[in-house]
């Protein structure tokens, strides 16, 4: 299973090892890990709660991975996104892309993150000293995703 939505934390090294197991054709592994920061938009963040749309989340992530596989010559992909309540410095999301060469592994990893940020149904709510608030979508995420559009 290349996509997981879970409350539990993940182990990056173990996830890479699992992708590599038994194969010698992988020359490049690019990963991205997203983490909870203790500040956002000028306020301290004490906790973050991730809501999602069960069913659609998994389908959206699987679709993003399929798009990446269709577009780049990559060998294996793993995506894990956590849900529930997290604390500063906790891991939120992991994307691992393995390929023969680095250029395609990097591009596919960044593509998956950019698409995930705009197309996977997750929503963050932050707890700050002033109360709880929903995180606003960033314009920069839309433009990051838009640059992968093909004509």
């Amino acid at each position, binding site marked *: 299973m290349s996509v997981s939505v879970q409350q539990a934390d993940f182990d990056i090294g173990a996830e890479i090892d699992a992708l590599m197991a038994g194969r010698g054709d992988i020359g490049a592994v690019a990963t991205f890990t997203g983490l909870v920061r203790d500040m956002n938009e000028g306020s301290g963040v004490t906790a973050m709660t991730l809501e999602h749309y069960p069913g659609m989340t998994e389908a959206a992530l699987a679709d993003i991975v399929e798009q990446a596989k269709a577009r780049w010559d990559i060998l294996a992909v793993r995506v894990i996104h956590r849900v529930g309540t997290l604390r500063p410095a906790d891991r939120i999301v992991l994307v691992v892309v393995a390929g023969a060469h680095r250029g395609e592994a990097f591009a596919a990893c960044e593509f998956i993150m950019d698409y995930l940020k*705009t197309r996977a149904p997750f929503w963050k709510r932050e707890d700050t000293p002033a109360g709880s608030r929903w995180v606003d979508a960033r314009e920069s995420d839309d433009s990051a995703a838009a640059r992968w559009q093909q004509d």
Partner: protein
Amino acid sequence: MTMKIKVLYFAALREALGSSGETVELPEGATTLAGVRAVIAGRGGAWTALAQMKNLRAAVNQRMADPDDAVTDGDEVAFFPPVTGG
């Protein structure tokens, strides 16, 4: 024939509506996502959030959808703010 669909609400929209979802019977003529949205917002009160919330996104049968997309009997429709995961 009356169309019945399942409608789900998420995140800030869920809180504004005080509902995470419901079954909705659609009046004749409401055959698109935009139509469904107008029907629900038309109830007034808190439901107007569905019309007023900026940049609202939607899905039909768990796929991102546009206002003109068709909605038919038995569909699962969801409305939500722009996503902010990752």
